[in-house]
Each structure stands twice: as C-alpha cells, then as structure tokens.
C-alpha cells in the first residue's frame, strides 16, 4: 500500500512544469486567445521536442507508453498553464482510444508517429459533448455516432470533406464545431454495437480524468495568482492579504484543492487498473476538481477586486477555462447521476476502506 507517486513520475511532472513555465507564459496564452486560429503551431513543435506529444504513444511507435497515473500529474500541469484542448485530446485521450481498439492497427500505423512527432491533431466526437473541440484543424476525427438502426458506431473520419459549423466559446482558446451529421458508410466504421459502446465508455472515463486533472491544476493557478495579488495589493496601508476575510477565502481554496487531488489520483489509478467501481470514482474526481476550480475562480476574482473583472488581468483566462471545462465530458448532472447510481446499488462501495479494493 503506497498511495503516492514514485520519483520518476514526480521528476517527469517537474520537467513538464519547467518547460511550460518558460514556453507557455500568460502572454503566449493571450496571443492564442486573441488570434483567429486559436493555436500556436510553434508551441506544438516545442511540445514534440520535449517529448510531451509522445507520452502516451506506445514504445513500438516511438513514444514513452505512459499510463493513466503518470498522466494525472501531467494533466494538472496542462491545466495550470491553461493549454488549449487539442493537446490532451490528441496525445492522451485519442491516443488511448486508438491503442484500446484491436481493429485500429492500420490507424495506429498511420497516425501514432505523427501524434508523437507533434504534426497530427485528433478530435473526438462523443455523444456526451454537444460540440467537437478543435475539429477545424484536426487531421483525424474519431466519431461515436448512432447508425441508422440506432446502434452506436465508432468511425475514423479524415477531416477533409467533413462539413463543420463553428460556434464560439467564452473561453478564447476553445474552438468548437458541430459536425455535419450525414450518414456514414462502412468504409470509415471501426466498431459497432457493444464493442463501440465499451470504447465510448472508456474514452469518456479517460477524457473525464484528463479534464479533472486540468481543473485542479487551474484551481492551483488561480490560487497562486490570487495569493500573489493579495500579498502585493495594499489598502488601508497594508497588504490586503493581511486581512482575515481575504486570508480565509484563500485558505478555503487551498483546502478544496488538497481534498480534490487525492480523488483525482485514485480515479486515474481506477482507470489504469480497470477497477469495477471506476465510473463512480472518476465521476467523483470530476465533481471534486470542478468544485475546487469554481471556488478558486469565485474567491480569486473576489480577492482581485475590480481588476479581476477586467480582460487585461490574466486571471480571466484561467477562470473561463475552469468554467467551461466544468461541463466538458459530462456536466455535473451527468456525473452526479452516475455516482448516485453506483452508491444506491446493493454492492455500493460503502464503508471504511471500501474504495481501496
């Protein structure tokens, strides 16, 4: 029994963190937010140089073959630096999907080297999300859709020839589209029926853990920004951070973060091990991390005062990402319903130590 990370996992996280600190400064983020394409291609090639794009790619395809628990710490960093959707979607969630489908051997041959090299972007269409993130620049779209007979199918679609209508998000780094829902033929179909459903469920779980990690990372960033601000901003002749009302706001944020992180780690492990209760544990992680992020945003803007309500101060970018990721890959209603179903079953994971087995 050792519910902590090993030295390699921490060292990898630290190296990704150092890289992002230098390369994903708020100025760059702001540029992404304020330019039409919404992406910085040079950032992606730097990610590739660092090996970040190859983390999930199996070693046979030139990657590192990292598992979900390793990723938990990395997704926190992606959140902390508010990295746009397509990175985690491509190099973690979609890569995991491609590796989980035995029938996708040809796709793996075709796409994994490009993912590892940072030249390929993949988007995922899933019934839980009304929109698809970054479809406009995806090279490959993995789409879960009901076929004509209502049975779920998984299709691998090249972007070329696929109509999409863009829609705008309050998060300027998000580029959302609705894909044309024309009938899809057998030529793009990878799976159908139960097999497609199982992969859809696994993809939802992996994406949910990725979003939860980003949310708690965002919460930590908003806390750090707010602590810095409270230590510098003076009123009544002293830093506002010396006032108890302000201190208590920030102490509450830290407390929520401290009790969200271990839940994230347990969820990542449940995903990696395929635990029977993983659905409930993963939904719990999403809810706990979203709560931490929303509290960090609310308290953060309060501590920043009027400047927190401006476009100019960086806090806004992190708040907006926290707000929109809350409902990505299952809103709170979805995850609460899934958790309630697990808890009210006869074999619910209740009582001392129940979730450790």
């Amino acid at each position, binding site marked *: 029994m050792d*519910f902590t990370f090993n030295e390699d996992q921490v060292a990898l996280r630290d190296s990704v963190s150092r890289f992002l600190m230098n390369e994903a400064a708020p100025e760059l983020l702001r540029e992404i937010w304020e330019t039409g394409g919404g992406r910085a291609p040079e950032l992606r090639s730097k990610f590739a140089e660092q090996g970040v794009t190859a983390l999930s790619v199996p070693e046979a395809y030139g990657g590192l073959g990292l598992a979900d628990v390793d990723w938990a710490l990395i997704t926190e960093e992606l959140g902390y630096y508010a990295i746009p959707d397509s990175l985690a979607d491509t190099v973690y969630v979609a890569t995991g999907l491609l590796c989980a489908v035995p029938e996708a051997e040809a796709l793996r041959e075709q796409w994994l080297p490009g993912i590892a090299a940072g030249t390929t972007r993949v988007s995922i269409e899933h019934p839980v999300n009304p929109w698809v993130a970054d479809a406009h620049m995806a090279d490959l779209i993995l789409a879960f859709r009901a076929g004509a007979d209502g049975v779920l199918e998984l299709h691998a679609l090249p972007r070329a020839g696929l109509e999409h209508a863009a829609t705008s998000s309050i998060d300027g780094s998000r580029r959302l589209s609705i894909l044309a829902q024309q009938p899809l033929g057998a030529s793009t179909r990878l799976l159908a029926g139960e097999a497609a459903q199982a992969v859809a469920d696994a993809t939802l779980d992996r994406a949910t853990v990725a979003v939860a990690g980003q949310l708690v990372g965002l919460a930590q960033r908003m806390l750090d920004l707010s*602590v810095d601000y409270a230590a510098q901003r003076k009123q009544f002749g002293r830093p506002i951070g*010396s006032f108890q009302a302000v201190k208590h706001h920030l102490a509450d944020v830290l407390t929520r973060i401290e009790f*969200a992180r*271990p*839940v994230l780690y347990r969820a990542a492990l449940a995903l990696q091990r395929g635990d029977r209760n993983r659905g409930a544990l993963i939904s719990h992680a999403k809810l706990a991390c979203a709560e931490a992020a929303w509290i960090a945003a609310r308290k953060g803007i309060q501590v920043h005062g009027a400047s927190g309500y401006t476009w100019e101060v960086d806090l806004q970018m992190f708040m907006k990402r926290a707000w929109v990721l809350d409902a990505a890959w299952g809103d709170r209603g979805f995850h609460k319903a899934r958790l309630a179903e697990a808890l009210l079953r006869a074999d619910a994971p*209740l*009582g001392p130590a129940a979730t450790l087995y």
Partner: protein
Amino acid sequence: MDLDFTPQQQAFRAEVRAWLRDNVPTAPLESYDTREGFEQHRAWEAKLAEGGYSSVIWPKELGGRGANLIEWLIFEEEYHAIDAPMRVNQNGILLLGPTLMEFGTPEQKARFLPRMARCDDMWAQGWSEPNAGSDMANIASRAIRDGEEYVINGQKIWSTRAVFANWLFGLFRSDPQSARHHGLSYLLVPLDAEGITIRPIVALNGKQAFAEVFFDDVRVSVANRIGEEGQGWNVAMATAGFERGLLLRSPARFQRTAQRLVDLYRRHQASADRDPSIREGVLKAWMDAEAYNLASYHTVGRLLKGGRIGAEASTNKIFWSELDLQMHETAMRILGPRAELIDDPEVHDWLEGFLFAQAGPIYAGSNEIQRNIIAERVLGLPKS
C-alpha cells in the same frame, strides 16, 4: 502507486478484525459523559490495552504494537466498521502521549505511559482559560517555583473529561514577568491534589462533557514538568500538528457515518426525495468522506517516505469538522419531524452526533484559527 495491502498488513487486519469481533461489547455503552458510561468505557479501554490495541502506533514496551501508520489506518477501519465504542482517553493518548515520548524523561515515560495505555489514569486537558481560548498564548494561570515544587494558582476551562479524570496536563505561566508564549511550563497535575476544585459544565447534550478547574495554591512536584522550565509552549506545539492533524479523526469514522447515511436515505427515500437537496447532501457526504480517506492514505504514504506533515494539519481539521456537520445535518433533514425524538432508536445516534458535530469547528483550534494558519504558514500571506 500501489493499493495492494502486503500479506503482513492483511494479516494484521485479519487479527484486528477477529479480536474486535470477539471482544467488542454487544450492547452499546452509555455515554462516557455519565459516571456509569465513563466506567464502562474505562473497562473497554483496559480490555483494548490487554489486546495491545489502545494505541497501535506506540512502541511495544509502552503498551502499543509498534505499528506503522498504514496499520493504524487499518486498525481504525476495522474499529469503526464494527461500531466499537468511542475512545474515552484520546486526549491523553493523542495529545500528551506523544509529547511524553518526545520530551519526557525515562522515569516520566515509565510512570505515565503504560498507565495511560491501560486507562488506569484518565487525562483531562488544561489549555484554555477564560481569557485564553483561541488566543492560547494569553495564559495567565501561574505555577511559581518553590524549591522542588511549583505552586499553582488560576483557572482552566473547557477541560474535556475533567469531571471523571484523575490527571490533568496543561500549560502554566512559570515566569510571572513573561508574556505571550514565553515563560510557560508544561505540567502534569493530579486532580485529587489539595486546592483543586472541579466545577462541571453541562454541554449542549445535557451531559457533563467538560469542566472548569480552579487551582488554589496547588503544589506539584518539579518531577511533573515535561521539558525545560519556560519551554512549555514549544513542548506543547512540537507534536500538535501531527497528532491533531492526522490522528485525532481517522477517515474510517466518517466513511462509516457516510455509509449509515446512505442506508438511512435508502430507507426513507420516498419522503427524502421530496427535497432534492437531500440526495445531493448524501452524495456530498460520501464524496467528502472518501476524499478525506484518500487524502489520509496519501499523507501517510508521504510520511512513511520521510515527508513531514504540512498544510494537512490544518486543512484536515477544517475538512473533517465541516464534513461531520454536513453529514449530520443531512441525516436530520431525512428524519424530518422525528429528528427531535431523542429516545427513538433510529434517531438517537444521529441526534447525539448532530449535537457533537456543532463543536467540531470549535475545538482543537477553531476553524478560523486553522484558516489563519493556512494563510500565513502555507500560503505565506502577511500576519494580521
């Protein structure tokens, strides 16, 4: 990261489970804040000590098991899973015990620790005073050196268990010229000493849960001082974070309550669902109890690798005390108009727990003080 318990840990769990199954009283004990209930609990503590379970992390020669913190979590899980009695001597075992182990002389350890483990001695705490609550450094009770004795005058208050205890540990001002946290000494005082008056305070549940203790020229041997004269504050604080932050409330206690809450909700789901926020409250209770458990395993893992307790000491206190309130509030709302019926078997424990939960955010350092500690010592914000 590995959630598998070792064969040794599994064997320990099996042993604890079997012992508890054979020894836990079949009928619930009376409240330990009554004379009869106190004696029942004391007998239970003695039995626990016989089995070597009064404090599993203590060294064997002092009446413990020499267990590590994972085994402590396992013990707590088994203890709460079977609804074993509440622990009556936790103030001694958790607050004084570790202080004695770190700062006590060999004679003091031999004299007090085995008796504490067997509950031969029952310890009350003597920290707070009428003008030294959250501002504990404002302690005014004096212990003035007179040869090989201290002469104590003053008053302590909110001394948990003091009505039935026979010893008190606390801080007293040994240097009358000193101020704040300087010049205090950590003393052990027999409560049957001449000059001591104990006046019970009736708590919210109508029972004598704590007391005022008055000292009128009470003479205590210098041999009863822990650590150096004037160093009492540092002695008291040295173990406070670890003991209060981690050991005072194990996660199993809250997981068991969350489990009971889910059961209660299921039994009354039809009426409970008229208020959708009740279901929400049940989910939140389960989630936060689980979060507390996972955070504890994470912390224990860090400590076993040589880490030190940090922010957890204060965030834990805030989290479990608010969780305990939230769970009991939800139970009261499920029980609806029956929730006031203290003799109703389904209500009784929830109602007692609800009353006790009101104290959680206040005792062991109020949650406001914990938030100040987090802000200043963890987040680095300037002092007020």
